[in-house]
């Protein structure tokens, strides 16, 4: 059997990313046009576009299993790539694909289910002697039990949703008297987000680094790892910047953690690309956290330092091909950094700032890779995530990568929405970050300003404000700059402008 046509059950940059690899392999792609983004960039990468704009359902098509299967069958697809998010880690969807003789480009439904349920995943890790933070043996049913278990493992503890991910349904508890309230919040949040109120408790590791291992496995039982990524720069469990490799690991620790990652993947008969996440504490002890059974947003940094196209590997594995890369063939070369440029207002607590992207220009230097699903004129819609682009920079070592990242950040030009660019411009200059001396609590604890502006920038802005004031109030001529690109012109101001003519 060989895959000839793939339904892309996703949108945005990851849809573009998948279609690029498919095309390179001579495989056709089918993308879905939605009413929310009828002229999105990803559609232009598809061989076939399925029009779903007349769909009036409240659920996005990318979450609608029956509809997706139908579209795949209707358009003659023999495989589905779920990307990340949406149904990427939905065992039922994977199962449905198989039922309909459509290849699901990802792991088996069984592996998705076992790793997706954190309680089962913990049991598997425990029985395979994978180091783990102490925790409850299974789900916790009420506050009293939570208090009892927490006092046994010792505070601080973290409450996590059994079906969770992405930081939702997670609460850190530092004192027994907070437990009742936090337990109720976490459980409510878990039910809302995952349709499952079950939660469990774990020892909370203070100030760890987030280290994850990329693994690849085939259907014949071969599993390898492609080294680690460090994703400690996160805010409320949302990753903002990732790099590979990590400055915290040496060859020995890399080998040890890598083999643990391979071991746990093997325990569920894992195939396709997957990620095993660990926390690394200040004593360089590591703890298994969870396994993500999909391609990750930050996969490009691994691709850049290994030269391996992960999407291509996923497709080959789904096709039943044996992994051609052996563990000893994996060579890590150079250093890669990814900045997630999101439409968010860093001056307002990273609040999403959806809107139309008026101008977009990205650096085209050969050390830069840009993965994006938007172009000038595209909209960042509030129904989806706020990602604009991933800026990936490669250097010969960390120092070189940081230097190039700084240059590249100054070359990115986005108008129309506020972005996380000022945050990265600050980060790349922060001594703790450049020194490798940072943990997952960096943003929360070590920062007092979330953005960078060079000397004189405020003064130049003041000059512009003064210029406008003079033109609007103190001159009689109506020669004014055109600010039609500004996002919101006060109606009061417009009226005033009109009355002056």
């Amino acid at each position, binding site marked *: 059997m060989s895959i000839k046509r793939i339904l892309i059950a996703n949108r945005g940059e990851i849809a573009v990313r998948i279609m690029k690899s498919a095309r390179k392999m001579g495989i056709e792609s089918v993308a879905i046009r939605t009413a929310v983004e009828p002229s999105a960039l990803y559609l232009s990468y598809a061989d076939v576009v399925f029009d779903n704009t007349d769909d009036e359902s409240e659920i996005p098509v990318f979450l609608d299993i029956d509809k997706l299967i139908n579209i795949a069958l209707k358009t003659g697809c023999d495989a589905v790539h779920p990307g990340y998010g949406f149904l990427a880690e939905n065992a039922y969807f994977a199962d449905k694909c198989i039922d309909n003789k459509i290849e699901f480009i990802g792991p088996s439904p069984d592996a998705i289910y076992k790793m997706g349920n954190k309680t089962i995943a913990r049991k598997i890790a425990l029985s395979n002697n994978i180091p783990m933070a102490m925790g409850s043996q299974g789900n916790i049913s009420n506050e009293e039990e939570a208090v009892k278990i927490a006092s046994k493992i010792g505070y601080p503890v973290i409450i996590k949703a059994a079906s969770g991910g992405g930081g939702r349904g997670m609460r850190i508890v530092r004192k027994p008297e907070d437990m009742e309230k936090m337990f109720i919040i976490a459980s409510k949040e878990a039910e809302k987000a995952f349709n499952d109120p079950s939660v469990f408790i774990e020892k909370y590791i203070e100030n760890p680094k987030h280290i994850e291992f990329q693994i690849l496995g085939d259907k014949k039982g071969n599993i390898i790892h492609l080294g680690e990524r460090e994703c400690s720069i996160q805010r409320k469990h949302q990753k903002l910047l990732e790099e590979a490799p990590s400055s915290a690991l040496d060859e020995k620790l890399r080998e040890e953690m890598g083999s643990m990652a391979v071991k746990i993947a093997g325990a569920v008969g894992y195939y396709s690309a997957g990620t095993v996440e660990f926390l690394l504490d200040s004593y360089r002890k590591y703890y298994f956290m969870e396994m993500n059974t999909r391609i990750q947003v930050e996969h490009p940094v691994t691709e850049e330092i290994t030269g391996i196209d992960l999407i291509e590997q996923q497709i080959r594995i789904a096709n039943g091909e044996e992994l051609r890369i052996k563990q000893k063939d994996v060579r890590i070369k150079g250093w890669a950094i990814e900045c997630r440029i999101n439409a968010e207002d860093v001056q307002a607590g990273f609040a999403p700032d959806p809107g139309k992207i008026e*101008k977009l220009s990205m650096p085209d230097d050969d050390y830069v890779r840009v993965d994006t699903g938007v172009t000038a004129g595209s909209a960042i819609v509030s129904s989806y995530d706020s990602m604009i682009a991933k800026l990936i920079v490669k250097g010969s070592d960390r120092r070189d990568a940081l230097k190039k990242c700084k240059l590249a950040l100054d070359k990115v030009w986005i108008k129309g929405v506020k972005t996380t660019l000022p945050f990265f411009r600050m980060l790349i200059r922060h001594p703790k970050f450049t020194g490798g001396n940072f943990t997952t609590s960096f943003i929360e604890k070590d920062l007092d300003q979330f953005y960078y502006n060079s000397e004189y920038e405020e003064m130049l802005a003041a000059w*512009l*404000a003064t210029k406008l004031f003079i033109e609007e*109030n103190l001159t009689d001529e109506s020669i004014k700059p055109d600010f039609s690109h500004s996002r919101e012109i006060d109606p009061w101001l417009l009226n005033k402008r009109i009355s002056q003519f």
Partner: protein
Amino acid sequence: MGNEKAKIRKLYAVSSGNRKYVFSNPLRDNIRIGNRKYDIKLKQDDKFGTYILWKNRKYPVEVVRSRQNRYEILFNDISYVFTIETPFGYRRMKVLSRQKGRKEKELVRSPMPGKIVDVLAREGSQVLKGEPVVILEAMKMQNEIQSPVNGTVTKISAKPGVIVNKDDVLVEIKVEA
């Protein structure tokens, strides 16, 4: 009127952080730093939109909002708010701000459009600075809206399940003396 306008020779741009920048009227297209003058140019083209050219570098600019003498400028992806004052207006502003006492009531507003998932605050209850009072879901993320002050909750306008706009008042808190 025209005469009065012509009399204004100086303008102050006062930032939200209370930094004062002095400009002359008419405004010069250069700024002196030390003993060198640097040109500032406001330009616009199809590729970059509106931008300021300063020391051979382009900086994206946008006017986000303006109301009377208050301007919100987006400069190189960062927002700045200025009030433009004449020397007379500036003196008056300083006097007024000295007279203004400290806040007694704090309005907790929604920082973004979204859906209220949960209201944690109860009317009449004490809250501490940083304590979550409302959970708001926006763009697939749950956000804790925290109390900016220590105080007592006097009124709750937020209801679970309700969609709110940016700047809608969610909770009122009487600030602890």
